[in-house]
Structure formats: C-alpha cells, structure tokens
C-alpha cells in the first residue's frame, strides 16, 4: 500500500496539468498541418470542394457526447453512480458514432470522385480529419478503461481525478473538431 509522502500543495493536480501540456502539444501538430494547408492553398493546383454532409451529423454526435460527458462528471461528483454509468455508456456510444460518421463522410467523398490522392486539398482533408479521428479513438479507448472501472466493484473509491482528466480530454477533442470544421469550411 502507498501512503502520501508527496506534498501536494499546488492547486492543480499534476495529472491534470500534464494533460494540459499534452493538449498544447497536440495543438501544435494541428497548427503544423493547418499552416501547411494554408501555404499549399495559396499555390497552384488547389481544388475547392464541398464537405460531405455526414460531417454535420458527426458534429452533432460530438457535441452531444460532450454534454453527456459533462453530465457524467457531475453525477460522479454527486456520487450518483448508476446515472454516471449510463451517461458514460452513452458518451462511449456517441464517440463510436462520431468515428463511424467520419468514415461514412470519406466514403461519400470517394464515391463523388474525390479519393484521397485526387488533389492535395483532398489529401489534406483526409490527413487532418483522420488524425483528429485518431485522437477521438484514443479518447474512446480511455473511455473504455473508465467504463470498465465504472462497472467494477471498486468504484467505491471516489477519486475524481481520472474522470476529470477523461472529461477534459473529451471536451478538447470536441472543441478541436469544431475548430477544424470551421477552418475547413472557411478556408477552401
């Protein structure tokens, strides 16, 4: 067993802080990609096209999942464990739905004659949206762990840090998606 020897005097838990630094790092990767996108767009050979409709549905799923995540976190804090469990489950399903809809979106694009190597503009869409999707998948994996924990017997331990970390990450991928969507709509 472990006892506390590490003085924790700072306001923010180190794991939460670590997550914020990680978020900054992930943002830098997308900053790299989006600035490359802008540079390329100003050169020859750029194709302008409509985003597939599926992306709008996926956006709705993503926003809904953020709301359920937020509620789940609240229920956890209020020790309403059954409600917490069902909200986590809904969040998890919405996350899967989001990823599925992104895949549908790419299938529609390819059907409409815009496969990945059609033009640099399309390639960028695949890479940017795909990498965002990979981050959502990472979140889903983390949700599965939270999920397993929520249904295990030892949920009596009311440590909210992992739940908070999970929720923050989930909201982050949500905001990131909305930002990317606006970016991709505005700069074509």
């Amino acid at each position, binding site marked *: 067993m*472990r006892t506390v020897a590490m*003085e924790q005097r700072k306001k923010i838990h180190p794991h939460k802080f670590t997550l914020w630094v990680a978020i900054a790092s992930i943002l830098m990767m997308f900053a790299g990609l989006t600035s490359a996108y802008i540079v390329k767009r100003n050169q020859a*050979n750029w194709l302008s096209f409509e985003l597939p409709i599926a992306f709008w549905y996926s956006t709705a799923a993503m926003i809904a999942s953020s709301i359920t995540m937020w509620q789940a976190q609240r229920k956890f804090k209020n020790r309403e464990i059954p409600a917490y469990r069902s909200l986590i489950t809904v969040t998890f399903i919405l996350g899967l739905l989001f990823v599925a809809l992104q895949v549908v979106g790419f299938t529609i694009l390819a059907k409409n004659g815009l496969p990945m190597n059609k033009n640099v503009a399309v390639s960028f869409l695949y890479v940017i949206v795909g990498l965002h999707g990979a981050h959502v998948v990472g979140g889903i994996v983390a949700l599965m762990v939270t999920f397993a924990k929520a249904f295990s017997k030892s949920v009596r331990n009311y440590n909210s840090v992992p739940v908070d970390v999970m929720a923050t990450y989930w909201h982050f991928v949500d905001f990131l998606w909305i930002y990317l969507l606006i970016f991709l709509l505005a700069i074509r």
Partner: protein
Amino acid sequence: MSTSAALHHEDLHSAHDAHHEHHHHETFISKYVFSQDHKMISKQFLITGIIWAIIGGLFSVLFRLQLGYPEATFPWLEDLLGHWAKGGKLNPEFYYALVTMHGTILVFFVLTAGLSGTFANFLIPLQIGARDMASPMLNMLSYWFFFLASIIMFSSLFVQTGPASGGWTIYPPLSALGDASSGSKIGMDLWLVSMAMFIVSSLLGGLNYISTILNLRTKGMSMTRMPLTVWALFFTAILGVLSFPVLLSGAILLLFDRNLGTSFFLSDIVIGGKILPNEGGSAILFQHLFWFLGHPEVYIILLPAMGMSSEILSVNSRKPIFGYMAMVGSMFAIAILAFLVWAHHMFVTGLNPFLGAFFVLLTLLIAVPSAIKVFNWLTTLWRGNIRFTPAMLFAIGFVSMFISGGLTGIFLGNSALDIHLHDTYFVIAHFHIVMGVASFFGMFAGVYHWFPKMYGRFLNNTMAYIHFWISIVGAYLIFWPMHYEGLAGMPRRYYDFSMWESFKQFGGLNEFISFVSMIVFAAQLLFVFNFFYSIFKGRKVTSTNPWGANTLEWTTPIRPGHGNWPGEIPEVHRGAYDYGKDGREFISQIEPVGENESHH
C-alpha cells in the same frame, strides 16, 4: 476539486514513504527493466545512449576512412560490411546511409534522448525535492518507446536495401520516392516509423518534466531558487513538446506520400524516364515543417548542456553563478527565438529575399542572449577558486566550443554569406563544434559530476584527464580545418573529393582529419571503459556531498532508494549558489538563512 485530489492519492504512484519501502516486492524485472524509479530510468537512457553513441561514432570513422583515403582499400571492411564494401571500399550508396544514420543517431538518439532522458530524469526530482516524476508510469513508457524506436532503427541497418540514406533531414523527393535510391525503400519507412516512436517518447518525457517542475517542488523551492540545470531542462522540455509534433505532422504527410499515393511534397517528377502522376506538391513545404522542429531541436540538444555546465562551473569555481536571473532570462530568450529562425536553413531554397531579411535579423538576435551567457560563464570563472575536476574541464571545454561555434553561426546567419557557405564543410564545422562537440562536452561534464550520485562510486580520474585532453585537442584539429575547406567551396555529403581538380588540394588535410578522428574515437572508448569499469570497481563514495555542492541531490543518502529521501523531503531556504558567502565555502540550500547573514 483540489480537495478531492488531495484526499485520494492512490494514483500518485510516486507517493512512497520510506517506511513502506521494504514492503514493496521488487523483482529483478520491476527494479531494472520495467522500473518506474526516475533514477533507474535515467540510467536506462544513459546506457542506451552510450550504446548508440558507439554505433554512431563508429559510422563516422567508417565514412571518414573513405574521405581520408579515397584510393585505399581495406579488406577487413568487406569482412565487416559484406556487399556494402565490395573489394574493401565503401559502396557510395552505403556511404550515404552511414552519413544519414550517423546524423540521425547522434542528433536524436544520443544528444536528445540520451542527454535529456538521462539528466532530466535524474536531476529534476532530485534537485527540486520530489520523490519521483509527476507520472512515473508515463516516464517508464517514455523509455520503452525510445527502446522500441531504437530497435526499429537498428533493424533498418540490416535490411537488404540498406537503411535510410537521404540525410538526417530526410528531404523529399529523395525520401518520398522508393525508386529514388536504395536507401529510399524500406529503410526510409523504418526510419519514419522509428522516429514516430521516438517523438512519442520525447513527448511523454517532456510532459512529465514540465509538470514535475511546475507541480512537485518541495517547500521553499520557488522557481527562482531552482538550479540552472532545472531551468535548462524545463526550457528544453517546452521546446520539445511544442516542436516535435510539427515534425510528426511532416513525417505523417511523408508516409502518406510514400505509401498512399498523395502528393504533399511531390510534383512534376520524372524518375528513370518515367513520368510520375504526382502533381501540386511542394518539396519546400517539407523543409518548413522539418526546420520548424529542426532549429528548436538544436537547442533541445544544447540547453541541457548549458544548464549542467553552468552548475558545474559554479560549484567548481566555489563562486555563485554570475547573473542568475540573466542566465534564466537569456535561456528564455533563446527558447523564444528558437521558434522564429527556422528559415535560416532555407536561404537558398528560393525563399523570398524580403522574408529572408527578417530571418537574418531574428537569427542574428540569438547572438545577444548567447553572448550574455558566455559573459556570465567567464565572469563566474574569473578569480574563482577553481578545482580542475574532470567535470570542470569538460564544462570549460563546453564554453570554449560554444564560443568558437557560435561565432561561425553569425557568418551563416547572414543570407548573403550563406549563399556561398550553404551545404559546404563550413556548415559541418559550425554545427559540429557548437552543437555536437559542445553538447557532448556538457554531457560528459554531467556524467563525471553526477556519476557518484548515480552509482555511489567515482570514475577514474587518470582516464578522465586523458579522455578530456584528447577530446578537446582532437575536436579542434578535426573541425577547425573544415572551415577553410568550406570557405573554398568544398561541399558536404560528397563521396569522393579526389575527382575534383579544385578539391584535390585538400587530400592531405582530409587524411589528417580522418586520422585524428580515429584517435578521438579511441579516446571515447576509453571513457566507455572507465564508465562500465567504475560502476563495479570505481572508488567508493564515502560522504554524501563529495563536491561540496549546495543543491538538494547531495542531501540524499549516498545511494538513495526509490523515493530519494528516507525521511521528510527537506525544506529549501535559499538559492542554489551561495558559494563563498560570508567566508564559508558553500551553504546548502536546506540551511535556514542566519540572522546576520549578508545579502548580496
């Protein structure tokens, strides 16, 4: 939220109490292999780094053999390398592979992972007064991702078509088209996958270093009382966390171009008489993504060496570091500027000269904080009570190298001069002196200084002095003449200069350089021997504070266990540099400030 965090510490794996130490079941695996103790992880990074350094160094000896003796044949080379050295002469393709691997290994695996991984892990918790990292688990993963990256890179040495050979900067189209060269085939894919693992490793490490420094300092350890080593490692981690993801994005785009038929970096290419369908890509775009990491990377390599040298210079001059706040401020300035100068590597890419002018200005601005640091190091030494320990010699050597190499940076930073000097041996001389040798010296200084803390024994001094003198004299003999070769236009990355009338004159010089490099390599082997010999047979450390230093790591037992301090973590009452104050040689950071103590 913070109360719930304070109530539940189960997840703080580092929360060890000395009394519970014995209750841990420590198997061989959990102690030496999948260890979560920052000190063990540090040693894992160091030893992996040493192995890579031997491999990377050996590669340079091999290609220097070709440059120094272009006409000779060495039958043993064929025994060693097989079809890569038919008839005892390096195959040109393999020459490029060796150069590429040398650069990749030394820049990333040795001077990034080996250097930051070792000393950030070892020193941050010990010097700020923490029991371990913020997340020992991520820390362990950081090492194992590095290990995985190492295995993949190493295995790329053995594939049929050879490892990547397009230079450590992997510019497309060479790196993007499998048909461009034999090293562009599977070797390049392995390079990219390995580097992706490597980037994950440095990100996990960097995240941890930053949150540990900001969150786990002991009582009284305000930011401005931190040793300069910790500051340097802090800025290093920030640079890494913000710039490596950009390289990752470039690497991902490159993987798409290679394997999925996209054209991010490719356009209008004819290869082997065949016209490729790729259209609309830009190879220059890759250079922007690469150098946006690439330039911060050189400071990721340099800053830890700066921090450790600052610390060691002060301890062994028995004087406070001169201008502590100026040292922190100049590192901060360097870290900011590091993000704003990447295009100085691209002056000859057709960059808009107007834009180039801004990059010239920003690049030359780096000279200001650099000069402040040099001034402060020299004034720290000035009238010091200097003890020439091996660590001290290497720290002084670091300053010397930084001055010599920094000055040539000013030449290169002027775009008008760079048009002539770009891609010549002048650049090779510049960055080997300022980055390669300087950081190696900083790393050696660190190893000599902290080895007693790591292993409870001293390194052998005689071997250390031989190592130092051969290294510093040798490094100048190797790299100084390269400036002249570069000024005369001798290009880098050529296989055989004897084919050119204008470079024939350098035949003798090249032979000399190659000869010296073998001697210097041998001296490094002496260090490696000293290192492993002393782990088991070195003179034992008998006091907790053998160098008479102020920082917290010397308040732990001679061989600290997991958790670092057996009892409470000590409280800090002063900065790290009270040397020679009020007639006392040194005053540890844990000593309360006396009533009549002077302020300086």
